[in-house]
């Protein structure tokens, strides 16, 4: 068991990141921190892909220098996913700014109370 944890610590990190991200998303009342939680969650997924790219005894298709080598495809995918993540964060922050301008608060509970009067 311990052995497994030590050789697969990347996956432990993935699970931790996913867990922490989800927890922040759900539990944190502050909207900005929710957005950060979303980012942490996505980072967990990025790490998962990067980790999965490692293949035992992999070699390059043409010329190699001894390795170790990883599959480039997940990296390319994650590059795309990171771009998507950045744009999502940008939109989310823009919305947060607008909410703050409108209601003067970033706290979800306060926001609920304010909006109850609408």
């Amino acid at each position: 068991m311990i052995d497994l944890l030590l050789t697969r610590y990347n996956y432990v990190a993935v699970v931790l990141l996913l867990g922490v991200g989800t927890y922040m998303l759900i539990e944190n009342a502050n909207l900005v921190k929710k957005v950060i939680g979303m980012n942490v969650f996505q980072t967990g997924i990025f790490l998962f892909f990067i980790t999965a790219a490692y293949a035992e005894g992999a070699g390059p298709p043409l010329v190699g220098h001894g390795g170790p080598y990883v599959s480039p495809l997940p990296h390319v995918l994650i590059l795309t996913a990171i771009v998507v993540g950045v744009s999502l964060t940008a939109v989310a922050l823009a919305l947060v700014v607008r909410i703050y301008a409108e209601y003067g608060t970033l706290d979800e509970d306060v926001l609920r109370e304010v909006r109850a009067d609408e």
Partner: protein
Amino acid sequence: MSDVPALLVALPILASVLALLVGQWRPRAAWAVAFLGTAVQVGAAGLLAARVLGGETVRYAVGDFAAPYGIELVVDGLSASVALLVAVVAFGVLLYSRVAGPREPAFHAQYLLLVAGLSGMSVTGDVFNLYVFLEITGLAAYALVASGESGRAAVGALKYLLIGTVGASLYLLGVGYAFIVTGTLNMADMAGTLGSEIAYTHPAVLTAFALVVTGLAVKSAVFPLHTWQPEAYASAPDGVSAFISALVSTVSAYAIARVIVSVFTVEFFRANPVAQDLVVGIAGLSVVAGSVLAVTQTEVKRMLAYSSVSQFGLVVAAFAIATERAVTGGTVHLIGHAVMKGGLFLAAGAVAAATGARYVSEYRGLASRRPFLAGAVAVLALAMVGVPPAVGFVGKWYIALAAVEAGWWFIAAVILSSTLLTLAYFARLVERMYFASAPTAAAGTADAVGATPDAAVADGSGETAEAERPGTPDRVTPGVVALVVAVAVLSVALGFAATDFAQLLRPTLPELLAP
């Protein structure tokens, strides 16, 4: 001709940029660009549909990188119908938004971007590419929801964004699992590997299925993953909620179907009956829970949103049953629902613009004030309930028949009784429109208008009085009313056309469902 699938995606993106640029120069021109763009989109999708409905499959290798190494766009009967639906609804709602707004160039750019994302989701043959389009769709949808004036829209959009992103991320995680065990991202290739090289009961395959379906279920707002949806629909501008409600969940549900029948295939269910039981069970739960929640709503748009939760339960159940008849029924209902729900949101928007009524109770006596709008709402509502021969009935008939044939007695009972559940919330609306007279407050303020006009306009019901006063310029043009009525007529006419359509799907489906 074989480039058409790529055009479906590229064209709206180009038009989107163009709309933004042109809009800087002359704001009203952005609408014209969007109009042209969606019109060409309708033509392209129609061309494609005409070609593939009947059995042919069009494949397009993006950038000439042959599959499975490159990204492939695959258009068969199923995806062509969804792509055509996207184009047609986009075109129709755009006509509505000319009157109802928003009118900023940014809106039209986002709108076209959403069309691109949805079309991409419909035609792609690559699971990661699907994720990218899912996020493009999502980003455009978040921004569109937020394009409403109020702070409420921003809050709704942020909620939508957070939950939607989690959904898409879960999908991505599922793709990761599938990629690890199969080593490919191409749908057809993955389907070939699964089952032969990797057992369907492999834990990673099961995990991948669970994550992918859960992620897409978030996007199509199946109970209990629907929580983003009512607020997003209710807070968005009317045209946007019509568009989103008609398409975003629809295309996500299509993606579920695609993943089930084209990637994991029916064999997966045969090997893992528990997975099928779970999906069908949750879908059934969604039907019931969505209806119950809809009954408790007071705001019309929220009620319609919960109604979608319920209807998508039906669609997902159909796709999970995964027989030829079930998928036929699911597709018919998917398209029929898009037309009916889009029409209902348009009508709700038009009613709000005409009378200010946004709550169920404010619909009282609408029939006498707005006979055509009320009539359209009533027809659409009854079509949704499943009164034959409207399209809502035909879809339900096929799904129920498939459920009984496949021996899913419980879900068959849920599907059939969904008629009553749907009736429970729509009957309230129809009853108020036709059999309750307008609130007496309106008559009171109408008198007050004569004395102190300013005071009357200030409060909510004053708007009602204002719209009724003769001589007041109407905020709803006859064109909008005609559009809503046309959608209502369409919802009935589609009921007769549905079987011809199902006939066209017939060659496509056995190929998909063949083991």
